[in-house]
């Protein structure tokens, strides 16, 4: 019997030769990831249920990455990091990335691949909805709550319902002014914020397979904004090359059977894609940039797990180079590594860091920062009636801090072009000529 990639991973993890979509199975977990918001309650549940002296099921499989509320004076937020630190020390966890230490990383979903935890064919659960990002590597990865995470910490197991797969194919070369963010905003706009509920969303076609890992991660990251359970891209040499550079661990990649059954298949012609935005206050409130062109803005934000990767800044820098920003612009690298890379990556005779700084942008530390609002002193947080264009993934009311603010989601190209003019702007107006042929 033929299976999809997702079905195959879940069959393997549940010790079976075959599973059907819709079945509930108990799987063995390869990696459990948690962070500073959900880690402390997870630890609380683990101790309550398994005892104060209980040990985690496998310390090599537990990854703790504080990233959400880091650079704040909020006493409760700082206490959360203290709890993680004490737990990691007590359990002698090798994969803890402490704040204030050299090991501090920043946003977990970008740090996970950097550290080699996103391996094809494996099962990853994380206490964060964007855990689905790791599906870009052909891993089954999805978000869970603290109770489920506490359960895994003690047992290494969890029940899952095997999802059906929706397949999204992009045929042909992606035009140079279009980024992965435009593809996923288009999909979410087409299917709605609950269009993928309970399902796997797979991205395929040469338009996708020609993307680097960071582009693929932008697609899988926002599966949850379409309601999806997990996002997935079939692994290939690009995947293996990325993963093998970062871990020595063995893994067994899995693939779709040729006659696997899908819930649905949608095909897009890459050449027909337009730069997209999601208008306030929902990621499925889609419009082309052309439709909302010249909407006045008061802020631009480039950051987060979906829009704060090195390639996102490379793209934004290509647009911003030599210009000054016309609105308050915040640049927040996802991880400390990316922050360093900004200072050593050159474009047209200047480092990316200098390009942004000379343009007048505010440069932040690696963390989630204002992507989810956070305590009132959070870098870049929206405090009032701002109209912000952002490379992040959510624009629900209040998401970036203020319920009165309005947030437009867009690609790094579009955000950068709009930052220059202070209005929503088509990136083609600013992209260097050779890129827009």
């Amino acid at each position: 019997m033929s299976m999809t990639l997702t079905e195959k991973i879940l069959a393997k993890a549940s010790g079976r030769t075959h599973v059907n979509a819709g079945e509930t199975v108990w799987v063995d977990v390869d990696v459990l990831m948690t962070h500073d918001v959900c880690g402390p309650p997870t630890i609380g549940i683990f101790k309550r249920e398994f005892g104060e002296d209980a040990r985690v099921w496998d310390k090599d499989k537990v990854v703790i990455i504080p990233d959400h509320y880091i650079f704040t004076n909020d006493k409760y937020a700082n206490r959360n990091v203290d709890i993680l630190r004490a737990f990691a020390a007590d359990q002698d966890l090798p994969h803890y990335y402490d704040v204030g230490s050299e090991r501090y990383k920043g946003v977990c979903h970008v740090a996970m691949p950097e550290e080699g935890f996103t391996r094809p064919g494996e099962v990853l659960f994380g206490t964060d909805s964007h855990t689905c990002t790791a599906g870009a590597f052909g891993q089954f990865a999805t978000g869970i709550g603290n109770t489920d995470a506490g359960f895994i910490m003690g047992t290494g197991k969890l029940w899952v319902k095997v999802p059906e797969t929706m397949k999204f194919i992009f045929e042909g070369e992606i035009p140079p002014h279009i980024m992965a963010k435009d593809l996923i905003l288009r999909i979410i706009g087409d299917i709605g914020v609950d269009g993928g509920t309970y399902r796997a969303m797979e991205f395929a076609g040469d338009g996708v397979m020609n993307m680097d890992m960071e582009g693929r991660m932008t697609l899988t990251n926002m599966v949850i904004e379409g309601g999806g359970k997990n996002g997935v891209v079939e692994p290939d040499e690009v995947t293996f090359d990325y993963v093998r550079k970062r871990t020595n661990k063995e893994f067994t990649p899995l693939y779709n059977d040729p006659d696997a059954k899908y819930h649905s298949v949608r095909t897009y012609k890459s050449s027909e894609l337009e730069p997209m935005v999601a208008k306030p206050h929902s990621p499925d409130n889609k419009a082309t940039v052309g439709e909302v062109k010249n909407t006045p803005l008061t802020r631009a934000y480039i950051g987060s797990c979906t829009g704060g990767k090195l390639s996102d800044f490379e793209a934004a820098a290509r647009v911003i180079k030599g210009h000054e920003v016309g609105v308050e612009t915040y640049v927040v690298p996802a991880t400390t590594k990316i922050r360093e890379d900004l200072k050593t990556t050159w474009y047209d005779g200047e480092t990316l860091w200098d390009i942004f700084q000379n343009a007048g942008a505010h440069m932040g530390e690696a963390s989630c920062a204002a992507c989810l609002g956070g305590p009132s002193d959070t870098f870049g947080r929206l405090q009032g009636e701002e109209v912000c264009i952002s490379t992040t993934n959510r624009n629900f009311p209040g998401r970036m801090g203020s319920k009165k603010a309005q947030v437009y989601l867009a690609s790094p190209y579009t955000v950068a072009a709009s930052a220059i003019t202070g209005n929503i702007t088509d990136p083609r107006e600013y992209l260097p000529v050779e890129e827009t042929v």
Partner: protein
Amino acid sequence: MSKIIKGKAFVVGNDIDTDQIIPAEHLVYSLDDPEERRFYGRFALSGVPEDKSGLPEGGLPFTDPDKFESDYKIIIGGKNFGCGSSREHAPFALQVAGAEAVVATGYARIFFRNAVDGGFIIPYESHDDLIEHISTGDEVEIDGELNIIKNLTTGKSYPLKKLGDVVDIVDAGGIFKYAAKHGML
């Protein structure tokens, strides 16, 4: 589920996300400390835009600003209830506020899972969009055995979908109790 849940309904709109159920700035309180955890009850559903909070009129808080518990026991939502983040603080906050069930036409997967596995609140699905049929403040009753919800204020009843595979976990009171019962721990 033989359980009867009876109380006042609080009605909200479609796509109520976890930031609306419990805004991120409040996630810093301890879930265990009895003094601090009460704040989850105070701020439950505090992120819902005013015009959607307490339909049909709107403008009603779920929990009064000076209280820690809500007067409402059953939350009525539309589609995609609980979308957004994976935070378990969301069903937890509703429980701390005193709510016992949500009835919506559909849920975001993680919210549904968290509600069930944590034993916080029962997420029932309705066939009809009850936003049209129930007003905030109406007295309603859920019969978990017959799978119906009655609006005692109007006298009308509406069918609920069966809880399906997860009913055993709901009955046990969460994943730990379920696993203990089945000798998995």
